[in-house]
């Protein structure tokens, strides 16, 4: 069995890590850029909503566009 990491399928797994984990600094050292835990909750809710919409076949065009854009970007950045 091979691990997967397609962007669409694993966005929530990624968010779980990026928002809730990783190195942190003491509060007295940081500049805050807004309420990151709240941003996390909103993002996860938005993603869950998107997944539902994708399941029902909506947003397919949008999703295709985004993946194409991302691929174009990756090709460009690797060149």
């Amino acid at each position, binding site marked *: *069995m*091979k*691990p*997967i*990491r397609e962007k669409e*399928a*694993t966005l929530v*797994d*990624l*968010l*779980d*890590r*990026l*928002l*809730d*984990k*990783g*190195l*942190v*600094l003491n509060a007295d*050292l*940081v*500049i*805050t*850029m*807004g309420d*990151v835990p709240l*941003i996390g909750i*909103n*993002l996860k809710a*938005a993603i869950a909503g998107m997944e539902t919409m994708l399941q029902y076949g909506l947003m397919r065009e949008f999703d295709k566009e985004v993946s194409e854009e991302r691929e174009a970007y990756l090709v460009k*950045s690797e060149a």
Partner: protein
Amino acid sequence: MSEGYYLYCIVDGSDNASLGPIGVDDSFVITISNKDISAVVHHVTGDVKIEDTEKSLQWVGKHQSVVEEAWKKYKTVLPFAFGTIIRGDEGELKKWMEKEHDRLVKSMMKVKGKAEYGVQIFWFPSRCLDQLVNSSAELKDLKKKSEGENSGTAYMYKKRYEKALKDEIEHKASELFRSFFERIKACVTEITVEKIKTLEEDKQMLLNVSCLADEGQVEVLGNVLEDIGAGEDHPVRFTGPWPPYSFVGM
């Protein structure tokens, strides 16, 4: 005006490099070194505020792609949580790196040559109800009594039956959890338990872990998961490789 550095990750190596305008909001990403390690950062002046979800999703994506870039280039990374900005100038950042140096290097040694993988295993409690009832004399008895003629006592037995069945399902879940957990733990360097998420009524998450593993271990892990997921009863989700967000050791 506040000055600071947005932090993506700490990497193994010291080179004071420019990585280009690949950062959050197209910021110019550089590395700032102290001794044998470097921080991958972009310079921040003024207030940084995330206003909406769409923007934060873009920024999260950029944060991740910079960490990935650095991971490819430097091989060993300790990623920061999204949205970490250290206050002050370059000197302040170096001071922090100096102070945390030994701890950072120790974490770096731990994750060197390894990556993080997510494993989630599911089950369908409703599918084992019959089996659970049949294997317990108490449950069988309560079930029978709950179907009795006297509606008053039947109701009471029904409640007791439901409670006993719930306990039995929980017991079964923890038994399965332990057995899967031990098998996974045996083939990786380190493992952390994550929160269980609720899904649909029927399909439930039984185990959610992050594992730190090297290439050889991942292959073994893949085989173990293949085996666990072989029937229809325990679907497995296996994701990665991720930068070692769960194993930065701070």
